């Protein structure tokens, strides 16, 4: 294989994403499937900012994703019929929750950290699950729909036009991903790599490790809740399962499947996950066992994920 030029690869990815609604139909896809890939990719890439580039495993990112989902749903249903307001509320909710919870747990490491992120995540799940008259409980929050965005000079009809919704999601994805990409190439981003590589050395270089992990956690969770708000728009629905720990597990699977050491890995992982889910679930109810098997094979034989394989081949 020819050596992959990083810039060319990035340009190719952006080009494919920009044109996705048009080429998806050739491969028997549909626009909403592409939108789903983008939303879940954003969530998985946000998680990977923490997992792959700070070396901290969270099993509770669904909580912040779900806060985005419910922030959007509740805002449009009860507060203000505005998509942008829903986004602001969802992201703010995720940010505040992450900032507070992060401050409580940032001293923990490894399995202990992961366990506590699950525990806090389940708290939000049970609130959504039990608080029937506001959140709709186990039935989820329905009876609301995404609202076209009025920009004054023009109206973006994300309700009636699938492609408009896709491009709104792509715009949010692009902004979030560009910020994360820029951060990872900055001195701050390199302190995160330092923590991932060797926490003791990082500490004795004078990096206040806990504070930097907290920052990485808050950035990661906030972008994950942005993904949550978009997910609510896509489904016109808020499902309590979006908050649950198995949803967090799906994000981890996407990141690891695609390759958690590579920036674009989780995008590939999410695409594989969503497409397999879409295709296999039409054949059998047990689609998760197929994904599970695929995941096990990748982890056993290609611990660096799908992108890791490509990269190793290209390095030869």
């Amino acid at each position, binding site marked *: 294989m020819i050596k992959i030029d990083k810039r060319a690869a990035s340009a190719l990815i952006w080009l494919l994403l920009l044109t996705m609604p048009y080429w998806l139909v050739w491969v028997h896809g549909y626009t909403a499937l592409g939108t789903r890939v983008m939303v879940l990719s954003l969530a998985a890439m946000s998680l990977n900012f923490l997992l792959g580039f700070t070396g901290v495993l969270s099993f509770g990112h669904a909580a912040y994703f779900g806060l985005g989902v419910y922030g959007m749903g509740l805002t449009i249903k009860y507060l203000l019929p505005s998509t942008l307001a829903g986004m602001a509320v969802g992201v703010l909710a995720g940010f505040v929750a992450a900032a507070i919870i992060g401050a409580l747990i940032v001293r923990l490491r490894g399995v202990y950290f992961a366990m506590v992120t699950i525990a806090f995540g389940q708290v939000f799940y049970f609130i959504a699950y039990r608080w029937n008259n506001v959140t709709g409980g186990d039935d989820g929050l329905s009876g609301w729909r995404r609202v076209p965005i009025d920009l004054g000079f023009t109206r973006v009809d994300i309700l009636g036009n699938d492609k408009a919704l896709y491009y709104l999601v792509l715009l949010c994805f692009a902004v979030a991903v560009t910020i994360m990409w*820029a*951060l990872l190439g*900055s*001195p*701050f981003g*390199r*302190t995160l*790599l*330092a923590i991932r*590589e*060797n926490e*003791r*050395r990082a*500490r*004795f*270089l*004078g*990096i*206040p*490790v806990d504070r*930097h992990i907290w*920052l990485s956690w808050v950035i990661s969770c906030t972008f994950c809740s942005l993904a949550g708000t978009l997910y609510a728009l896509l489904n016109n629905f808020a499902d309590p399962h979006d908050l649950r720990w198995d949803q967090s597990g799906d994000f981890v699977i996407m990141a690891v499947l695609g390759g958690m050491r590579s920036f674009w890995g989780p995008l590939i992982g999410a695409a594989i996950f969503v497409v397999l889910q879409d295709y296999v679930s039409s054949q059998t109810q047990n689609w998760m066992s197929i994904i599970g098997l695929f995941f096990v094979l990748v982890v056993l034989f290609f611990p660096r994920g799908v992108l890791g394989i490509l990269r190793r081949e290209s390095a030869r």
Partner: protein
Amino acid sequence: MSLLRVESVSRRFGNLVAVDTVSMVVEPGELRAVIGPNGAGKTTFFNLISGFLKPTAGRIRFRDEDVTDVMPAKRVWLGMARTFQVTEIFPELSVGENLRIAVEVAAGYRLRPWVGRDADAALRARIDELLAMAKIADKRHRLAGELSHGDQRATEIMMALALKPQLLLLDEPTAGMGDQETYDITQLIRSLHRDHKLSIVLIEHDMRVVFHLADRIMVLAEGRMLAEGTPAEIAANEAVQAAYLGKAA
């Protein structure tokens, strides 16, 4: 003003007293060696100075400031840098990136989301300077984890040096090295001390290295200070000879 003043520090682990009321004063520009048989408490003593462990008794002053309860990162900000017995670097990053992180943190950029062009040029110049000093410039693009033991150690020392410390703490810098590597590292430490006037405290097993480098030597045995003096005084000290020979016998 003394650079480092360790006042009767002790450290217990349960019933074991790893370090028992040890005091030490290091003057600016001094190269001090800490030696002693295995299990003498040298590394624990070092961990107390650098803040990796807290003493159960005693005080530590650095540049006239009481740092006994100050966290490691802040001791680094005050001008204390260290290396470890088992080299601690960033194995999956290149040598250049290892140094870049250290240089950026030293420049106070650790929270910056971007670097300007001028600042970037200054950082690069500093990295080049450090690479040249350790004679590892040809390895800057190699992954640090793939280097020889000696080059990894040199990288670690340069990362510590990038912080422009007032005091450099080296925990067995030549541990596990061959003759040539030991010689190279010894030369590097000597040049840091002689040419860059750096104050250094080092733990060392290799007596050739110690007597070659140190201005003063402190001997620990079973957690206590056995002797302190110039290399000549220590070589002539009967208690020290007994401690080492006694262990050997």
